[in-house]
């Protein structure tokens, strides 16, 4: 007994020898970096173009990214659990095309919406089957389903856009709650709910544990596979909701809806400081990062900065943000 315990005080002593100052513990967090970047980006964007500093305009522009941001919230949880999902943008397209096809075939809008939501769940379950039952790596499975889902959307809708939805369905981005467009409000509410879920529920804590060490989580009796299955279902369902929001905003759907969105979603999650290897991250970070992206993208567009510079900046941001996040976590771990 004593022989086992004897080295312990030494270890504690060594750890205690260099306690990190409390301000560092609180401030040196990825979310802080995101928040600082958000402030800097806002100042720069205001300087770049006199047309930028207009809350109504920023909120209107944010509706173009908020659909991705809503999915990014769920993606954050998926990544915290140690997996990844690259297929949500394709799921948005396929579920939206199914919605459009059902409507065109004569189904009333509520039924078409149901079709779309069920398809989202089905696609999520399909991903989950490969990942949790066949135990294939999520990275490559979701690259495969990304191509498959978008391909199916293309088979279903061809190159045609399906539209002429009834007036009440179209234009959700222009329905306001106060001055906030409905999709943005959905994003804010979802952020609060998922933030609470992840932060204070037992299930939320278990997800962090799974991401930190899956083996330990299994030994602790956490139902790892069931939880992961649920997360991919949630990802599919959220994607189909985001697809419907997009369909309503555009008033029409096409197979190339949200194409390239996977990059934007991953970018938002990474910018928010979620650790790519799982176990760490927060909804708050993703929430802030979504606004950071809105400010940067809108700021550059309204300043007439060419798209080539925008692609370059987005790519660099993604790389720099993971390097920064990694560095911060490496510090706080030791």
């Amino acid at each position, binding site marked *: 007994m004593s022989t086992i315990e004897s080295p312990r005080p030494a270890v504690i002593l060594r750890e205690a020898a260099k306690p990190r100052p409390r301000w560092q513990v609180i401030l040196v967090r990825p979310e802080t970096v995101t928040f600082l970047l958000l402030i800097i980006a806002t100042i720069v964007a205001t300087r770049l*173009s006199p*047309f930028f500093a*207009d809350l109504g*305009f920023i909120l*209107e*522009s944010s509706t*173009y990214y908020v659909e991705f941001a809503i999915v990014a919230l769920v993606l954050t949880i998926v990544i915290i659990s140690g997996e990844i999902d690259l297929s949500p943008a394709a799921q948005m397209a396929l579920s939206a095309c199914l919605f459009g096809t059902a409507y065109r075939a004569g189904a009333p809008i509520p039924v078409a919406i149901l079709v779309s939501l069920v398809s989202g769940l089905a696609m999520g379950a399909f991903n989950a089957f490969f990942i949790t039952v066949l135990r294939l790596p999520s990275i490559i499975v979701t690259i495969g389903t990304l191509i498959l889902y978008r391909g199916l959307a293309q088979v279903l809708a*061809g*190159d*045609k*856009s399906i*539209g002429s939805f009834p007036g009440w369905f*179209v*234009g959700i981005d*222009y329905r306001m709650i106060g001055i906030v467009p409905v999709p943005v409000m959905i994003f804010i509410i979802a952020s609060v709910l998922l933030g609470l879920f992840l932060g204070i529920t037992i299930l939320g804590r278990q997800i962090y544990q799974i991401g930190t060490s899956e083996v330990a989580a299994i030994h602790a009796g956490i139902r790892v596979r069931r939880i992961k299955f649920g997360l991919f279902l949630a990802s599919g369902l959220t994607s189909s909701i985001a697809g419907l929001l*997009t369909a309503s*905003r*555009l*008033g*029409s759907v*096409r197979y*190339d*809806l*949200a*194409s*390239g969105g996977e990059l934007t979603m991953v970018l938002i999650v990474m910018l928010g400081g979620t650790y790519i290897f799982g176990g760490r991250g927060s909804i708050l970070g993703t929430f802030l990062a979504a606004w950071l992206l809105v400010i940067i*993208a*809108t700021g550059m*567009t*309204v300043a*007439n900065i*060419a*798209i*080539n510079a925008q*692609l370059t900046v987005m790519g660099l941001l993604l790389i720099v943000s993971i390097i920064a996040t990694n560095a911060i976590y490496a510090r706080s771990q030791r």
Partner: protein
Amino acid sequence: MLRKKLMLAAVLGASLFAGAAYAADPVSIVYIPKNTGNPYFDSIIKGFEDGCKTLGCEFTTVAPASAEATSQIPFLTAQIQRGVNVVAISPNSPDALNQVFDRARSKGTIILSVNSDMPGNEDHRDAAILPVDFTKTGPSQVELLGKQIGYEGEIAILSATTDAPDQNVWIAAMKDTLEKDPKYAKMKLVTIAYGDDDPQKSTTETEALLANYPNLKGIISPTTVGVAAAAQVVETAKKADKIKVVGLGTPNQMRRFIENGTVEAFQLWSPYNEGLLAAHFAVGVKNGTIKNEPGTTFEVPGLGKVTVGEKSVIKTQADLTTFDKKNIADFNF
């Protein structure tokens, strides 16, 4: 007397001030092509630039990286926020932009659809500037090919996507011409292939045409990516003497094939003139000198008299321009 002088001075001053304000506040036009890096739209941009140089309007152009349906929307919103007077756009979708167009127009922005229209959604834009009389594209392409193959034999069409609206209008007209005009009775349309305006897919589709129809005499490809791919395949297969390729292409894209004899002739119009015309029309409508309604006519230097047609559609030229060995050296776009 003094009073009169003062008043005169005030009036002069006011008119001077007004003049200065007018000069400092020219019509601002922005053009949003389908995507960046597309040489076809570079010619339209050149037309806008030259038009604005003479008219004194302010011109800018912004473009998304890819031509998917929604990629133009953030750019459009940003331009409305910048308060531009006229947005000229080559829409990537006939309907996905409707809501944004409506918002722009409610704020007084003039929306011009350039190079293609939005069939069925015409009331969401102010006017459309088309490159040519689209009813002539089909028959004129059939004639161009017929002439080369002695009006006899199997022919095929290589189009863009199955649902490309312009191409489908032209193909319908081609079919109609082949059926109804006895001159083309011996020309048989065997199939329509779709290359999705992707070089790789257009290439494999053309190769499949050659493999599936050994007696093929000619290919019509009414899309710039398709016609270049078709020509390249025919050249690679060394079948230029057996299979004639015609279509719609840009001179720079096709020059090689004309010079080495793979392609005898192809057609297009002038995207440059389209830009020029659009600039004149935009400034005229904004300043109130041109009425945007069917039947209005106005003058564009170098293009002559232009008439606004039904549904505010304006055609830049009546007939297609044919490019061949004799004239291709005169064009650079």
